[in-house]
């Protein structure tokens, strides 16, 4: 499978650190049969969406849209800005076709400064992924700023939960792919 990890913030470091932690787990346990890559929006320069076909963008924007469209599994790392996902991540969604995540399994890692926002991924990010036809992993990992120190995640619970999220995501993606492949064989053409 083609696995892509997105760090959806263009500022700060916490989302990037969490996304790289997911990358490390993937590389350690799932690198044999899969292709794994990261898209860190902080390091990429994206245009604003203007509604064109995703193939008609150029440079970083085209690279990012094509990488996501070619993925089988996507991990979305997102901070919480003003009680929602950041504009950088929403723009990423706007750059893609409406059913971009059809047959793709998607999961979420959130970083935030306060526990008061723990339902933002549930109520704001999941509806977008659902609208774009993603097969969404039900649970997600929510990481607070107090879980970090000196550029690493210091809370063991977060490490365990990221391990679990990665495992849950790969299991769901494999099962979903296999079921669809059986279903498509049954169509008789």
């Amino acid at each position, binding site marked *: 499978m083609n696995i892509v990890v997105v760090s959806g913030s263009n500022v700060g470091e916490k989302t990037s650190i969490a996304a790289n932690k997911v990358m490390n787990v993937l590389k350690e346990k799932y690198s044999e049969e899969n292709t794994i890559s990261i898209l860190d929006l902080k390091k990429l320069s994206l245009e604003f969406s*203007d509604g*064109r*076909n*995703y*193939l*008609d963008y150029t440079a970083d924007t085209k690279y990012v849209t*094509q990488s996501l*469209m070619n993925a089988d599994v996507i991990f979305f790392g997102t901070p919480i800005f003003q009680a929602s996902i950041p504009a950088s991540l929403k723009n990423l969604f706007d750059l893609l*076709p409406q*059913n*971009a995540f*059809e*047959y793709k399994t998607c999961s979420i890692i959130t970083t935030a400064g306060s526990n008061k926002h723990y339902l933002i991924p549930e109520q704001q990010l999941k509806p977008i992924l659902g609208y774009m036809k993603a097969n969404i992993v039900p649970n997600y990992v929510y990481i607070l700023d107090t879980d970090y120190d000196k550029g690493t995640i210091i809370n063991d619970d977060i490490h365990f939960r990221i391990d679990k999220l990665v495992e849950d995501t790969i299991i769901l993606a494999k099962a979903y792919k296999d079921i669809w492949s059986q*279903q*498509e064989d049954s*169509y*008789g*053409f």
Partner: protein
Amino acid sequence: MNNPRILPKIDQSKGLEFGLYTLGDHLPNPHTGKRISPKQRINEIIETAILAEDAGLDVFQIGESHQDSFISQAHMILLSAIAQATNKIKLSSGATIISTSDPVRVFEDAATIDLLSDGRMEVVAGRASRVGLFDLLGYDLQDYEALFEEKFDLFLRINENETLNWNGEFRSPLKNAQVIPRPDNKEKGLPIWRAVGGSYASAQKAGRIGVPMYQAHLGGPASEFKKPIDLYRETAAESGFNINTLPVATAGFFYVSNNKMDAFKEYYPHVNEGMKITNGQGFPKQAFAHGQDYRSVINVGDPESIIEKILYQHELFGNQRYIAQLDFGGVPMESIKRNIDIIGEKILPAIKKYTKK
């Protein structure tokens, strides 16, 4: 209200018009992985038009595209070659991207083809689904909507007036400008359609100015595509036009084989792989499988099921013309020939018999 538009002449006593269209895609055949040369592709398009005429089809249409994996950039030149190679079949562009062209030049080209073909030329004008041509031809994508509306309006005015005065934003003004040659008919103009790709607003705009509507479909239930057509007719009626004089054409994927499942097996990889390359997303197999239901707008199957579907769609849409796209995604010439043979022998006689008025 008297409609100033020049409308296509469709003899409904002969039944629903049946045509073919190609977008001029130049893609590998997914069954073999091989792609023919641009020269061979162009020759095969011309050969397809000749075969369509021989089989009794009414229309042959070519779309303009400037993106990778297409050879129809100069679609008017291809139509011009077909005008010379055929005698009876109506010719149409579909769609001409009027937004990124000079309407004066488009009219000059199309009117010349009309003279070459003894009055068989029509134009379907559209906005482009892919937008690489804006950069290529020196236009700003920010003007996507405005360019189309202004240039389409100018194109209609040129069509309806040999000499005109005109001022606009995207082209230098015309002062007592004479646009020639003129088609050799009473109105001295061409039938011009507006291409609608499923947008309600676009269908509404076509109705508001009383131009015929050409609607292209990918997949889904036919009943969904009735809605923009209804809106088109409602808007045209509200704007004072007699909707009985305004034709509607519908177009979409078509592939026939004597065995229904063979048609799906053969055509699906062409559609799926072709769309991946040209549009960035394949056609989901589940959605294509819905094409086996008579209510689907995908006209793929055996001759009997396709006849049933086209008649069902005709009943829903009240369309005057149906245009089949059967060469998409590297369909080899022998399959195109087989399709045209079956259309001529089985499908066309049945469709005409049940739809003539």
